[in-house]
């Protein structure tokens, strides 16, 4: 197991956005979290990645080869350092930094050089910086963005921006990749490429993947297990084919635009 969440609860004033949710992810799995708009999916992500401090419950996570540790309430940068990396529902790149620099920043939590190293540029710091560039380029190559390396992130086409977010997350050396609606706004061609990319990352990078998605066909096609949330509560979980037939799930999605 790489992620083990128990009875996670998050209140905003009187609103309970996440209500006693249990969820786990095994090493190498692709797991999806779905549910209508406002169900609490992003809030769940934000709790796991430390952007919000959960009101209650427990969150454990750890590399497949190591013990699981509690990460509940840790600050976001420490959770990233622990090995969980995320992307955002609304793309959050560093718009004026180059594509290469965006990925280089992702490497930051694995670097050790300090202020004195920056000022004196000693051999160790220089070597580290060179290595950062190399590592970042290799990641860009894997994601298929290396031709854009010198371009400002904001000048990338939409689909490429989403992929750059994944590249940047990969640079932090995660064991669990959390993707918040990675296909949102993509055209069918870009979505197909994304599905292929996610599969390839899981197979080649020794990763587990946890995604929130609205696009039903993508979810059914890609994920091995699905959790369904509605009004902060977990209402179903299981294999895609079972969840799809679950009357509770169908009912939850009725009020919504099901074309999603």
């Amino acid at each position, binding site marked *: 197991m790489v992620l083990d969440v128990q009875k996670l609860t998050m209140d905003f004033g009187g609103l309970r956005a996440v209500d006693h949710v249990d969820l786990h992810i095994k090493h190498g799995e692709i797991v999806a979290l779905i549910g209508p708009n406002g169900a609490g999916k992003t809030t769940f992500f934000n709790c796991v*990645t430390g*952007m919000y401090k959960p009101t209650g419950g427990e969150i454990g996570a750890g590399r497949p080869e190591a013990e699981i540790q509690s990460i509940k309430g840790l*600050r*976001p*940068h420490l959770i*990233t*350092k622990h090995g969980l*990396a*995320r992307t*955002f529902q609304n793309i*959050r*790149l*560093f*718009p*004026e*930094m*180059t594509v*290469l*620099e965006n990925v*280089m*920043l*992702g490497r*930051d*939590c*694995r*670097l050790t*050089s300090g*202020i004195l*190293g*920056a*000022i004196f*540029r000693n051999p160790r*710091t220089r070597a*580290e*910086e060179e290595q*950062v*560039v*190399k590592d970042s*380029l*290799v990641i860009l*190559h894997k994601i298929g963005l*290396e031709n854009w*390396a*010198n371009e*400002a992130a904001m000048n990338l086409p939409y689909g490429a921006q989403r992929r750059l977010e994944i590249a*940047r*997350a990969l*640079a*932090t050396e995660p064991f669990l990749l959390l993707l918040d609606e990675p296909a949102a706004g993509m055209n069918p061609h870009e979505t197909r490429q994304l599905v292929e990319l996610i599969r390839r990352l899981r197979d080649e990078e020794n990763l587990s993947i946890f995604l929130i998605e609205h696009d039903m066909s993508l979810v059914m096609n890609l994920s091995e297990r699905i959790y369904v949330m509605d009004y902060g509560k977990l209402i179903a979980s299981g294999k895609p084919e079972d969840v799809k037939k679950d009357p509770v799930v169908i009912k939850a999605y009725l009020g919504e635009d099901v074309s999603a």
Partner: protein
Amino acid sequence: MTQRLNELRRSLLVSLWFMLLTFPIMVIRVNTITGTVRWRWTNLAVIGIGSFFISVVWRYAMQRKAGEAQAVGILSRVGERVGAGTKKIGAVLDIPKVRTRLVGGLLAAAVAYPFLNSMYHTNIMITALTYVVLGLGLNIIIGLGGMLHIGYAAFYAIGAYSYALLNMYFGINFWLALPIGAALAGLFSLLIGLPQLFGIDMRLQQTTVFVYFIMLAVVILTIFVVHRLENSRIGRQWVAMKEDYIACQAMGVSIAKAKLTALGIGAIWGGLVGVIFAARTTFINPASFTVWESVIILSTVVLGGMGSIPGVFVGALVLMLLPEYLRPFAQYRMLIFGALLVTMMVFRPSGFIKKRRKAYTITEAERQSVIKAELEDDGEVEE
């Protein structure tokens, strides 16, 4: 039309608020000797009308600016990138040849300066250079670190006092325990005290030239350090932090640490210059480090161009040298400062010289070699 009226109403409210705020200082005048109170109502009227008009002009300028930005929109962004090579002052500095020549020329002029000019001018220049360093120091905090800091003179003061106290009770250096600037303070106080230490009898003229060169060296050192920091891991953190701090911390950067680093490094320069200032004037008191000092330093950064080294340089020189050479206007300095700052913020918010970040880019050859090495690596694993 209704919008115009709305704007006027807002301006009216602003002026009322100002009248209320300044009422105790500007209207009531207590004469403690005769025990009488004078009500200066004309002052109230002047403030009311004055703030109303300034507010109207300000709002009009802001609106015009917002309108422009909307009209040009995305196009301006593209244009900026394309036209950057020819138009912007900052861009000209990016051309290596221009840069080398300019820096060489400036350096030669700087070295020759004290020999070509009288002590009076050298002294003025020392003060100006002091503010260049202070500006660059504060620039680390606000321009690079993205924090607003209005008490910068405090660091300056700490440096100055640590020197003063070290000097008075040589050996009892508890001020060294002060977190900021004090270690460097000790070092530089020694440097400044060098002539006395070896009993070299310098005449005033020589001392001035000596201090001038120390100041010049500090300026160069500051520029060097800031430049190195900008192009390092921490510089990258600062840029990312300002562009999107939520994404930045989600990518594993400790925002608190990055900000504290900017604050700490910025403060060291304040302390450093404080020491030199104290050594130079041989007399300091709390009045030497008022909010006014902070305001001037902040102005140099804002006017010159936040984050831009040449910008801060120009800003400090302009702000420090102009008043010295335009003595007749000295009493209006505050007014001119204020007007200048407001005008700049409205029409040229990025300062005299806009910061141009040197983005990290790679050449095609570098890219090819890395990718090739990577592919070979993969091949080995598969075989």
